[in-house]
């Protein structure tokens, strides 16, 4: 990294303002850097441009002064704590001093996943290097930040991730005070091994999300609820950790079948907005294999298979089978909360979020039981608020060290 600390001279409140202003520009779908990034992402990942636009809207519309401020205040007590000693009720005054060097490694390809940690690290006045895959989203966004204030040109850098193997990457990881990493287990292990002994390592592994319909929910399942569920399952073709990967319903066979009817019709409708993208031969073979086994089962009177809008809904999927984790494939499994918890335990599923109709105490208790870090109403599963704890971790607290003074 070149000279560090370029943002330290700026009050955190101003940094928040610059970030929010840049995000506002990015909220405009016709903003030239965004148009370029949209094309690049669509080309690389194979999503349609409306889907990429949808993802970018959700990302940038959420980055506002208020949301950034609220997240920081909720974790640090005040924004001013990032600037210097700040009084704290019943505790010593303290300065939430940002780390010098933060590296964010996005070894996988989720759209814009590196941007939220990067902007919180910048708000904490850290120097940030984002190691990203080949599209230009982060670099373009950092370019917009630099237009807001030249200090960002020194403080925020985006580079291509090459797997941590070359000297430059090894040095970056070894010198970083904080390393945020997104990836599969083996990638996270490899990155962690390259970090300094005292570096703070913040891993975000690949996870799955589940949904639960109570017996009452099943009875009340209507088109609107079914469309919200379908949206959670089909958006990004189920590629996200917040995508709905399996849906449990506390229902007997007849009620389950009825739910399948309503859901499949909703899948058809939602697929108009989020059409299926062509998948590669390997994924197509896996989907076909899963669907054909379900069809084989259905022919013998066990469950049903629906195909709607390029997606597959398997009704009565067996609990002894793990979630298929395939694009646009949703198993609907019969079972109550206990069955869902047993399913998660049996298959050792790392759960990210639980989708429900009502995030009440019972839902939160179930989430705690299955290790989920987010409970969300159907339809909002893939729309986490900026002020929430991503992956159960704080947004900004990982990027600072407290300096107490009496």
């Amino acid at each position, binding site marked *: 990294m070149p000279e560090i600390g370029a943002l330290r001279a700026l009050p955190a409140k101003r940094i928040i303002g610059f970030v929010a202003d840049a995000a506002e520009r990015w909220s405009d779908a016709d903003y030239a850097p965004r148009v370029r990034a949209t094309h690049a992402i669509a080309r690389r990942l194979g999503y349609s441009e409306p889907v990429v636009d949808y993802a970018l809207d959700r990302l940038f519309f959420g980055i506002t002064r208020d949301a950034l401020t609220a997240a920081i205040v909720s974790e640090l007590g005040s924004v001013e704590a990032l600037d210097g000693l700040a009084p704290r009720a019943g505790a010593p005054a303290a300065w939430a001093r940002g780390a010098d060097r933060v590296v964010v490694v996005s070894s996988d390809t989720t759209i814009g996943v590196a941007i939220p940690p990067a902007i919180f690290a910048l708000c904490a006045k850290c120097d940030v290097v984002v190691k990203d895959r080949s599209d230009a989203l982060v670099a373009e966004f950092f370019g917009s930040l630099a237009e807001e204030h030249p200090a960002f040109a020194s403080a925020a850098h985006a580079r291509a991730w090459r797997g941590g193997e070359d000297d430059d990457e090894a040095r970056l990881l070894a010198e970083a005070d904080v390393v945020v990493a997104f990836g599969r287990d083996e990638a996270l292990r490899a990155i962690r091994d390259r970090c300094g002994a005292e570096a703070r390592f913040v891993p975000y592994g690949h*996870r799955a999300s589940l949904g639960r319909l109570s017996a009452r929910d099943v009875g009340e399942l209507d088109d609107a609820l079914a469309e919200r569920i379908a949206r959670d399952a089909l958006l990004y073709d189920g590629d996200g*950790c917040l995508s709905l990967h399996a849906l449990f319903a506390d229902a007997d066979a007849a009620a389950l079948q009825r739910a399948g009817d309503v859901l499949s019709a909703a899948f058809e409708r939602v697929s108009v907005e989020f059409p299926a993208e062509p998948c590669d031969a*390997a994924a197509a*073979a896996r989907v076909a*294999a899963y669907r*054909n086994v379900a069809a084989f089962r259905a022919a*013998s009177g066990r469950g049903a298979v629906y195909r709607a809008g390029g997606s597959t809904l398997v009704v009565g999927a067996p609990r002894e089978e793990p*979630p298929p984790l395939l694009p646009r494939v949703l198993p609907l499994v019969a079972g109550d909360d206990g069955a869902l918890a047993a399913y998660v335990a049996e298959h050792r599923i790392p759960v990210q979020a639980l989708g429900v109709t009502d995030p009440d105490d019972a839902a939160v208790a179930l989430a705690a039981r299955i290790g989920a870090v987010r409970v969300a109403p159907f339809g909002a599963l893939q729309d986490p608020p900026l002020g929430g704890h991503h992956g159960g971790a704080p947004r900004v607290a990982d990027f600072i060290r407290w300096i107490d003074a009496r």
Partner: protein
Amino acid sequence: MSGAAALDARILAAIGAYALDDRAFLALARDLFAYQIARNPPYAAFARAVGYDAARLPARIEDIPAVPSAAFKEFRLATFPPDETTAWFETSGTTVGRPGRHELDTTRLYEAALLATFDRMLLADGARLRYCMLVPDPRERPHSSLGFMMDVVARERGEGEAAWLFHGDALDVDGFLREAARARADGVAVCVATTAFALVALLDALEERGLRVALPAGSRVMETGGFKGRTRVVTRAELYARAADHLGLSTAAIVAEYGMTELSSQYYDAPGSRARIEPRVKIAPPWLRPIVVDGEGRALPPGVVGAVRHVDLANRGSVLAVDTEDLGALVDDGLVLLGREQGAELRGCSLDAESLLARRA
């Protein structure tokens, strides 16, 4: 409709002749299909669901309803009652955690099919070889189809006693070195039958000891299987180059077999493609046909990559058409297989099936 004995006689005749033209293949396949749906209720139900029954038989080979290989894990797919099972082979249990079974009421077809193909693909020179087995020992794993197959080959085509050198999950490297030395002393060519994983283990051990083994002239390697469930994966090019170097063979003497527990017949590298390591073309015996299909199960033309479906007429006692997740493309003279890892990169942060499997291992 034909009874088992009549069908077996026709299948054995095709195996014996090592020939079956398209018309005869289709006729036998239709009769076999009719036989199977009359006796195999889950297959009959599946066939009915896609529009076929005794009154409406598939018009083309591509139309024969294919059973996904994973269905063997959930259903008993046999045309005979359980008490008539004389042998069964166990599939891997990696997908849903439990193995499947391929049951046989007789091993006659299985043995005839495997020997006829092995003769032509590995023993075209008529050699009587000594067999060094780096595959499961049937005395330890009686339900391994690979162990069964090689036991039959060694018994029927070997020059004497076979050496079984893979026990549990451990390779008997000293035993292999002893056998190699004995073969050299006796001047008898060897066939090393091995899984890819065991071959890697052998080569690693030889390298660790700084050894190279010169197998007698005429020796060969039959390699099968990939690295499913293993933590280390090497490329076929690397594996074959190392094997040739350490065993004193040409890479053309290393022949890959491609089979699966749910089938009764095997593919081998076409002799004409053995001069190179990749791509090698797999060829099937006349009673086994590969079809490459898209995600909708539609047959794809040559050269287009899709999932491989097998129509195996030697599968008289189970189901003749089996769908797999293996990727491949038809070429003029056979099938080119592609690894399952040929898919595009992961697009998101969702857990994937392989990672979940690794967590459960």
